[in-house]
């Protein structure tokens, strides 16, 4: 591990680090069972950048840096990365309260995300959103949304927009198994089906909504079964296997883009930490269960797969590890040294200015 950059290390006098734009998701050149080599590299880059972001964030929280309420994505990286690997830059995603991974997978820059968590004016939302509202419309990221299930309806609206404007964009609605019981989700799925909209519903079933187990809260064993009620294909995939997620997403996105309508993908996954930074999972999960989940870690398995079959080389992975650690060092320095919002910002952007 590289040295962690914390609160004490930054000096206000130093100029902000110059950070170049991150790469957008690779264009999908082949849709089939096997991702192309450049996609494998991109997947590993995003998996490890998300992991590094969340681990760094957890360290910041534990050392007392006031980054607000955060919901760690650690453990679920393969879901966001597998889906976004199959998207085009102009496509849309709508996210959940556990949204850092979706943002990073869609290409939102980590230094601007970190600055947002610090409440700085250089943040994605200029310090007015925080973790639960990170948005970057220029990257097709319609917003982290902490009102569970509501972001799904916005993805359906973006898909409607694509259809009415005759673009080839696709929208992805990420949601958790907690939202699977929420009315808006069902209304949105029905609208998408009756209007044949280019949208893919991606359920990340991590087993618990806060402390409530899915077995208690959801009437069916697989949430993918719900698709049949809305006349759409539904598949359950191993959400700890990025290539499996990618294959399902690529097929569903292709279907959506072709005008054939929506699909539902359920990714069985696991969150390593609590619901939010203050949640002690031992109140509702056993150590044995958590250890077993970590045995299926998506990054560990991806490394084993690509090294065993020779599709990527160890030095390529190490170079990505190193680059992402450095990127997070810079992101934290950038966040620490960025200016706070001017107090007058309290009153700006209440109403949308302008008219057409």
């Amino acid at each position: 591990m590289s040295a962690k950059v914390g609160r004490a290390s930054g000096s206000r006098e130093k100029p902000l680090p110059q950070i170049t734009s991150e790469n957008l998701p690779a264009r999908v050149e082949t849709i089939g069972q096997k991702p192309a080599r450049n996609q494998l590299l991109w997947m590993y880059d995003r998996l490890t950048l998300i992991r590094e972001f969340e681990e760094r964030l957890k360290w910041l929280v534990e050392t007392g840096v006031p980054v607000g309420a955060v919901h760690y994505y650690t453990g679920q990286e393969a879901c966001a990365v597998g889906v976004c690997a199959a998207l085009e830059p102009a496509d849309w995603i709508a996210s959940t309260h556990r949204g850092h991974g979706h943002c990073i997978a869609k290409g939102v820059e980590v230094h601007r995300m970190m600055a947002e968590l610090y409440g700085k004016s250089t943040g994605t939302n200029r310090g007015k959103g925080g973790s639960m509202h990170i948005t970057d419309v220029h990257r097709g990221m319609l917003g982290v949304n902490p009102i569970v299930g509501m972001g799904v309806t916005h993805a359906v609206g973006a898909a409607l927009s694509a259809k009415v404007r005759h673009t080839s964009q696709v929208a992805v609605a990420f949601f958790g198994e907690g939202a699977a019981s929420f009315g808006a989700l069902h209304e949105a799925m029905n609208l998408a089906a009756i209007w044949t909209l280019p949208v893919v519903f991606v359920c990340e079933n991590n087993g618990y909504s806060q402390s409530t187990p899915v077995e208690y809260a959801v009437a069916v064993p697989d949430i993918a079964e719900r698709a049949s009620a809305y006349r759409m294909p539904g598949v359950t995939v191993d959400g700890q296997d990025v290539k499996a997620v990618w294959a399902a997403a690529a097929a569903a996105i292709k279907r959506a883009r072709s005008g054939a309508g929506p699909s539902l993908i359920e990714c069985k996954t696991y969150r390593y930490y609590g619901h939010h930074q203050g949640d002690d999972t031992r109140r509702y999960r056993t150590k044995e269960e958590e250890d077993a989940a970590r045995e299926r870690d998506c990054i560990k398995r991806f490394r084993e797969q690509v090294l065993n079959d020779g599709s990527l080389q160890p030095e390529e992975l190490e170079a990505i590890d190193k680059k992402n650690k450095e990127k997070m060092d810079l992101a934290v320095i950038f966040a620490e040294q960025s200016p706070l919002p001017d107090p007058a910002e309290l009153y700006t952007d209440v109403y949308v200015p302008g008219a057409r």
Partner: protein
Amino acid sequence: MKTDIVAAVRELTFNQAINEALRLEMRRDPTIVIMGEDIAGGAGLAHLGFVDAWGGSLRTTKGLITEFGPQRVLDTPIAEMGFVGAAVGAAMSGLRPIVEIMFVDLIGCCYDQIINQAAKMHYMMGGQLKLPLVIRTAYGTRGDGKRTYGGGAGAQHSQTLYSVLAHIPGLKVVVPSTAYNAKGLTISAIRDDGPVVILEHKFLGIAAKGPVPEEAYCLPIGRAVIVRPGEHVTLCAIGRMTHVCLEAAESLAAEGISAEVVDVLTLSPLDEGTILESVRRTRRLVVVDEDTPVASMARDIAARVAEKAFDDLDAPVKTVTAPDTPVPFAAVLEAHYVPRPAQVIRAVHDLFGTGD
């Protein structure tokens, strides 16, 4: 603002004026779509010769589907949370949706989409996106004791719930009172780049008829209008109450009291300037509101005037509102529920110390 109309001879009802506003704007801008329950009606039955079966519950959207087709005039299932959410998402991604919530009583079904999503997006995302969304909704009772238009709808279909919308920062809330200002305010709302709610009074929709220019025109959102100048007392009215106040002012004139009537037109942002300027001249104020009194617009306006113009008042501010009860069903009870000119006159008499 100039309210006299020079060229217009043609008369339209309030609802016809809104229909014309929608039609003209949809011709002007292909990104405008309208959505709602039975806004066309008989969806998918064109092969049987059924098109535009309803045209909206109050016929406000009649004829739009035959001009603009089902891709821009979208009948929805009964799913306010879903389709208002889809409209929010569509507004974030390139469309200018207009949604109809049949009656304001139904906003409970989609309140989150209005107060947490549409109203806050621009602010919490740091101003990075526009949200050109119009929500049209009908309010109020349908009778006036003499006439009734399918009235007697009872406690869940007759309310005046605009204060719960005006309470939310970021949302513009407009309440037209005539066919002329209904058309002009609707066009302004459609052209506005942010979310605007238009409350259309059910009774006025059919009963209010007046001259309306044929061309498109905008009336400013956030501007109240003095519809009858006077010297001795200001009657500040919202929506249908403007007509009640004009009737009261006519009677008061016969007894030598010159009442000025201010039509508020926009509840949020409220045009304090026009109200305060009027009160400083007349030195007396009665606020007349069809809504229930607790945490209402009537008391909000009264409080603002008390804070900012207390020294200019010759008497305490009076309010005339609906009682703090649900809307009753029986016509005799409903007629007592809605504020009437006699109550306004009594309130004015109280101000002058000439009451019973």
